[in-house]
């Protein structure tokens, strides 16, 4: 059986997708998958994923309906609006929600682990995360990654 290890470090809407898409797809192909969530990637393991957002700020490649100066993108409410528009667009294009992809991962036995160091750094409680995950350090990832066919840092 092939194995893939992913380190997920980002917690924005756009960057939350690649780890979950690749993990769910690899699992569907019969691969064994571990996703090590650290820093902002810990947000992928929150019980409620609805707070995950995207901002047009510092993101000049993001397609906007109208050209938007940086200072306009920085106005209050713009991040919420961009997030809402992106989610609507995804839905209309038949793109799965993050929740749906994570559920598919869990169903397919993708192993999610959380970096205990960053959990402590951000003063999170284990109870804020979904059940069934382990809280580990880098050595645990190496233990898996050393035998993996594919390793990705996202």
């Amino acid at each position, binding site marked *: 059986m*092939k194995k893939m290890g992913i380190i997920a470090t980002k917690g924005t809407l756009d960057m939350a997708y690649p780890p979950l*898409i690749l993990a*769910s*797809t690899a699992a*569907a*192909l*019969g*691969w064994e998958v571990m996703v090590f969530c650290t820093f902002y990637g810990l947000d992928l393991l929150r019980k409620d994923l609805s707070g995950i957002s995207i901002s047009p700020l510092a993101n000049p490649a993001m397609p906007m309906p109208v050209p938007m100066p940086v200072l306009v993108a920085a106005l209050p409410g713009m991040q919420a609006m961009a997030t809402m528009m992106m989610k609507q667009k995804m839905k209309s*294009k*038949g*793109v*799965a929600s993050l929740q749906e992809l994570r559920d*598919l991962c869990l169903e397919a036995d993708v192993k999610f682990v959380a970096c205990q160091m960053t959990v402590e750094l951000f003063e999170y409680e284990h109870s804020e995360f979904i059940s069934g995950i382990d809280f580990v350090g880098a050595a645990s990832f190496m233990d898996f990654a050393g035998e993996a066919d594919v390793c990705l840092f996202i």
Partner: protein
Amino acid sequence: MNVDKELDARGLNCPLPILRTKKSLADMTSGQILKVTSTDAGSVKDMQAFANQTGNVLVSQAEVNGEYVFMMQKK
């Protein structure tokens, strides 16, 4: 060709057609045929890759009016 089960993946985008295909095959028996209809242009190559990786056989694929039809035989 006898179709044992059909999957309508129209309107779904990557990676859902593959994930639904995997799920549909799960409760089928070896040798049975799953017909998948998709509108995701990426699924053309992805279905081949899925077959390569899983050992299920992509018996045929065709494009009909902008839709992609795959016949997948369970391993």
